[in-house]
């Protein structure tokens, strides 16, 4: 269990040099364009784009290997559950019925269901590289600064930057406490009964939580002494000024989003692309 969060290593390339604000805007635009559309053609286009960006960012696959495994498990689970609960949902959406083969009445495999579920998988998979680029190429402190720039109250943004700052500390504390308790004979594995395990987990969480409460007191006192929150505005040390590349990228993100909306409204007439009619 290592702190993989924001495994941030500074690099000098186009994606890294963009400001956090730009990356946030592009991430939101591309996520929403895919979230909204159920047109597999457009989703595949966005997927291709995000893979290109991933290549451009110079990130290594081994950095995201673990995430990828989680994503695949999650998607497989979702695929299976959707089929288990609503094997005929595709027919409901597309309004036609193209049977492929049947093995029992309810679980007949149809082309519509297949399209619906494959679209859904690509939908989730296509934004994953974007999310990873955003997480791994953005300086955490700069991220808070950029949230403030998009109009989020600086106190809220500061709370987020505190989260990012203290997360690794907390993981370390948790490990220390867990190891200390285990060396005293606390068993967290499946060998123990559920009730006992809950109690043992609480034995680790309670010291962690109470030390966090102490820390809250300490930090808020320190911040108050330095006059935090006195003024309506705040400047950020790490905020980057926007350059030409930033404006260009944001424009690009907006075009992707607009494309998705235009496709939905003018071409398909609904969120779904229906090749069956």
């Amino acid at each position, binding site marked *: *269990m290592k702190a993989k*969060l924001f495994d941030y290593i500074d690099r000098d390339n186009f994606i890294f040099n963009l400001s956090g604000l730009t990356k946030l805007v592009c991430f939101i635009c591309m996520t929403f364009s895919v*979230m909204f559309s*159920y047109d597999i053609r457009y989703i595949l286009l966005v997927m291709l784009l995000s893979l290109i960006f991933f290549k451009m960012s110079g990130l290594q696959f081994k950095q995201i290997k673990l*995430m990828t495994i*989680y994503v695949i498990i999650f998607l497989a*689970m979702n695929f299976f*559950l*959707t089929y*288990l*609960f*609503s094997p005929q*949902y595709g027919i409901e*959406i597309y309004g036609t019925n193209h049977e492929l083969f049947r093995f029992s009445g309810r679980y007949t495999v149809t082309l519509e269901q297949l399209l619906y579920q494959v679209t*859904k998988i690509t*939908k*989730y998979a296509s*934004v*994953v*590289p*974007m*999310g990873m680029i955003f*997480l791994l190429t953005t300086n955490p402190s700069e991220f808070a600064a950029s949230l403030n720039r998009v109009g989020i109250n600086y106190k*809220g943004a*500061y*709370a*987020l*930057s*505190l*989260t*990012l*700052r*203290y*997360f690794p*500390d*907390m*993981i370390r504390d*948790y490990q220390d406490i867990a190891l200390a308790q285990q060396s005293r004979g606390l068993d967290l594995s*499946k060998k123990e009964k*559920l009730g006992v*395990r*809950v109690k043992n*987990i*609480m034995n*680790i*969480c*309670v010291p*962690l*939580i*109470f030390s*966090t409460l102490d820390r*809250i*007191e300490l930090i*808020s006192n320190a*911040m*108050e002494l330095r006059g*935090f*929150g006195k003024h309506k505005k705040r400047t950020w040390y790490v905020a980057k000024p926007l350059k030409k590349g930033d404006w260009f990228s944001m424009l690009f993100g907006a075009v992707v989003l607009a494309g998705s909306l235009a496709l939905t409204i003018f071409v398909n007439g609904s*969120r*779904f692309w229906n090749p069956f009619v």
Partner: protein
Amino acid sequence: MEKKLFEFKTKTIVATGLGAALFTLLFMYVKIPTGIPETDIQTAYGIGAFFAALFGPIAGGLIAFIGHALSDSIQYGSAWWSWVIASGLSCFLIGFVYPKMRVEEGVFGKKDIIRFNVYQIVANAISWAVVAPILDIVVYAEPVNLVFTQGIVATIMNAISAGVIGSVLLVLYSKTRSKKGSLSKES
């Protein structure tokens, strides 16, 4: 001191920041498997409820929202927004109990336990059995009976987590605080 429902002072900000870090950590690593696959009890919701009761709806809501979004992003690369919003909403609603609580003065009796749990169960039911499934349908066009089944399971699991862990933590915390007027003058 009078407690306002929506106050956002420095302490609330810091509590939000650190609480969200704690929430993320627990959400990722500290789950209690129940034996039924994919339905672990998330201890994080117990912490979310605890912080909501101590620091109010804004802190609670932000803690769960940031914490859930962050842990999703770290694990999966992107967040499942409908559930992230439901997370935030559940802890936001639990936070409404905040002005009525006097835990930091060492007061957390039977009445308070019941009150906290009533708030907590209502909040979880609204967020997980109603809002999360509806958002799933609207945002992601998920099949209706799947999301409602998931929603009801999530309601039960999160209510257990918030009820047991949240209440236990509040009782323990109230015991560490000295009661108002607990000192008496020696004659």
